[in-house]
């Protein structure tokens, strides 16, 4: 079934843009409903998945605009939203270390601008191609490439001690 097949990616795209996991799930569901309603308008010029992700990204952008929930890079709201993301489970030393690493990664993510965070989440979390990301964010493929390079370099600098551990 299409919903089952694409749900994770669609929610991932929404999450990369709105960050709040609950909002992302809600937007993901709305994406499939919209896709069903507008199935006749799908002309096959892009792949079905790209069409679906574009709907998700448009909804997420509208959501941010409408609800004023756009997470600013350095604001308190961003911090609160990122805190909502569940960390790993377990009480072993290994789990604690993993939690600590995850916390640092989430802190580092907050240091990125929205544009850089979007591209790296779409790439690393959802595994989207540059072409798909450029489609979703409506920017040239070269821009995706340079934003990703900057985002990775910046995160690498911020997480230098984590990488070493």
């Amino acid at each position, binding site marked *: 079934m299409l919903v089952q097949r694409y749900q994770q990616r669609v*929610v*991932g795209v929404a999450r990369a843009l709105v960050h709040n996991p609950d909002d992302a*799930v809600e937007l993901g569901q709305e994406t*499939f*409903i919209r896709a069903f309603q507008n199935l006749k308008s799908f002309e096959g010029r892009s792949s079905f998945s790209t069409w679906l992700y574009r709907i998700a990204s448009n909804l997420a952008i509208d959501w941010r605009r409408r609800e004023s929930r756009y997470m600013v890079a350095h604001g308190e709201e961003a911090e609160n939203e990122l805190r909502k993301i569940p960390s790993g489970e377990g009480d072993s030393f290994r789990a604690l270390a*993993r939690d600590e690493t995850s916390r640092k990664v989430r802190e580092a993510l907050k240091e990125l601008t929205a544009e850089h965070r979007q591209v790296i989440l779409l790439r*690393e979390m959802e595994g989207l191609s540059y072409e798909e990301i450029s489609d979703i964010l409506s920017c040239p493929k070269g821009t995706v490439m340079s934003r990703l*390079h900057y985002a990775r370099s910046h995160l*690498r600098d911020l*997480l230098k001690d984590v990488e070493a551990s």
Partner: protein
Amino acid sequence: MSHCDDIAPLLSAYSDGELSPLETDQVTRHLDSCEACRDTLVDFVLLGHHLRSAVPMPSLDGFVENVMGSIAAERRPLRDRALNWLDELRGRWVAIVSLGGAAIATAALLLVLAEPATVGRLASLFHGPANPVVEVAKQEPPRNPVEPEPVAVTASVPSNSQAFISRLEAKPPSVATWSEPDNKTTVIWLGDDASGND
């Protein structure tokens, strides 16, 4: 041999497999001889791993059911949709017939107003001619050459008076037949000559 400054911007895309074959070959040859760029590449790969651990996927329990429920709510049964379509069609036909009738009535009214003579013609269709019509009956051959030749005249009056003269002979023997359908009365009038008093 390429310089690190030229290769560094390509490493991210290299790790994603998004470079052209030519660029890929160029970076690969550089990595063979540059430990710093190799470290950077490993860091980029590890970074992806850390990100996936730090930002887990939100729970999708009930996701499919919610979506399918919403879609099913929108998608009513075929029978309901067919009935709805018929209702709409019926509504359209009533509107079309009403508009058509109104248009015809308006056209008729305009025609009558534009041509007053039409009123008379229309009236005659239903009630007979507006003005009395006098017809001269065909004369029969004289039965008696001595007797004066009769002239038969029939006339009618406007039917709205309901009464009419069905026969009138001015010359002797004078005869007139007067009918009043309203009263179911017919009057036959004979002149002195015709009464046989002479």
